[in-house]
């Protein structure tokens, strides 16, 4: 008897509670309604929701708010690229000016064997950040340290250290720019990829030719051969050629420029062409076999 009474009373209490609380919450959600610009939500749906911060805002939502409230440019999202900026532009009713996908370029191509005079850094934390504080490490004072700070921050598994050199997998890369910030030597920069393959300077050594020759097999010696071929496109600054990407046009025949380069400091970056792949098909690349032990535990995050 008492059990039945308890059950009925309990059911009644919960029913009353449910009705009361849901009506309070229902009233509150309309009374305390905060009007949000519908466009913000629409833009949020279009943005990739990677929250990588590549646009310069904390997350996709902040960027969407900035577009609507402050009239920020719609083409800042490096991950979504031109399709996203077109969609956002449509929502905002603005024309999108040309926006090229930004992709990072590592301005160093010297792998472990190609660097001379190296004294390997083995103490303490094996990170570029730590190694960069020690003078005379890894031969070249400008080049890639090869401890993978950039590979570790990459959310897309697009950066790997191969033979002591960071290599970007452009198939996976979204251009969020995290590696650009991570590199303690600042040798990674985001550049507009106006074609699948672009010509880029892949050396950061500002020393004179004789010094570079002594420490690196492939580094730029500042011979200015490339500048002579294309004056407007390539300029010399501190013994290093710089490609002016504003003037860059994929239609230009730049193969000549690269052929002029006596070193390997001026190379094609990005997707290899079909012809390139066919040409190197039967070549065997020497790879030093080395244990590559990595667990996923190190980067594990706690989500309660």
């Amino acid at each position, binding site marked *: 008897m008492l059990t039945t*009474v308890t059950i009925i009373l309990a059911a009644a209490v919960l029913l009353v509670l449910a009705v009361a*609380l849901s009506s309070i919450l229902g009233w509150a959600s309309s009374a305390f309604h905060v009007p949000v610009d519908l466009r913000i939500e629409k833009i949020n749906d279009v943005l990739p929701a990677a929250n990588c911060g590549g646009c310069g805002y904390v997350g996709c939502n902040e960027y969407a708010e900035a577009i609507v409230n402050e009239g920020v440019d719609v083409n800042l999202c490096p991950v979504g690229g031109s399709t996203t900026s077109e969609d956002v532009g449509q929502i905002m009713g603005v024309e999108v000016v040309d926006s090229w996908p930004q992709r990072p370029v590592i301005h160093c191509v010297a792998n472990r064997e190609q660097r001379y005079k190296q004294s390997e850094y083995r103490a303490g934390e094996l990170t570029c950040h730590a190694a960069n504080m020690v003078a005379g490490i890894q031969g070249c004072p400008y080049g890639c340290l090869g401890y993978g700070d950039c590979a570790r921050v990459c959310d897309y598994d697009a950066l790997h250290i191969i033979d002591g050199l960071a290599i970007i997998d452009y198939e996976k890369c979204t251009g969020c720019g995290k590696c650009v910030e991570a590199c303690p030597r600042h040798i990674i920069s985001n550049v507009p990829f106006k074609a699948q393959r672009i010509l880029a300077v892949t050396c950061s050594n500002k020393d004179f030719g004789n010094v570079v020759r002594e420490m690196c097999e492939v580094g730029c010696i500042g011979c200015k051969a490339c500048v002579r071929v294309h004056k407007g496109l390539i300029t010399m600054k501190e013994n290093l050629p710089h490609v002016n990407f504003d003037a860059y046009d994929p239609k230009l025949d730049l193969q000549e420029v690269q052929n002029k380069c006596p070193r390997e400091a001026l190379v094609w970056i990005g997707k290899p062409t079909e012809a390139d792949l066919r040409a190197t098909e039967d070549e065997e690349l020497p790879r030093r076999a080395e244990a590559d032990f990595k667990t996923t535990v190190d980067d594990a995050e706690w*989500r309660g």
Partner: protein
Amino acid sequence: MEYVAQLILLVLSTALIHNYVLYYFVGICPFLGVSKRVDMAFGMGMAVTFVVTIASLLAWLFTYYVIRPGAPLATWVWVTAGGNPATVIDLSVLSYLIYIFVIASSVQFVEMYVRKFFPPLYKSFGIFLPLITTNCAILFACLEIMKNVSGVPAAEVWGVDKALVLALAAGLGFTIAIVLMAGIREELELADVPKALRGAAITLVVAGLMALAFMGFAGVDTGLAKVMIGH
């Protein structure tokens, strides 16, 4: 005087000696999840304090008037419906259901209210509120209150004052624990931790050592009680 002494002892006992995180190990998810930076940890601590206070107030009201054996409201309903006044109505089975129910909806309500009228406050800790709606530390505080309201002799039943003091002390204890943890973890970023222990493992080791350190407070309350109350 004895009343004040009791409250002080309650605060000490809840915040330090029987710290919710480091003694009972409740509320571990935010403790490990949001303790990477001190400012975030402090925000989380404040949010927990806020929610646990509201939850405890509501939990006390419901326990005292509806849930406990012979609660006035439940008995009134029973008698009005024509029941025998001598029957003791006991709705204790509902405690967990009602606590979760009430906490969740009150937090929702507060979130909407804060969003409308205090946008900066909402920006700073609004994101934490849904996270801790049904956090176990909050529920634990409610159950602690229930333990002292229902099923104890009439003279020892807690009033709403003690429930609120308990809630504030619980929030304070949580804030202390999570801020200390965040401070340690910020330093840990620069330490040379063995590879196998990096990340989650070393965090748990640190949490364990902190719990051991907090064990040092054990017995402080009995000693203080002797001095302040005399027994």
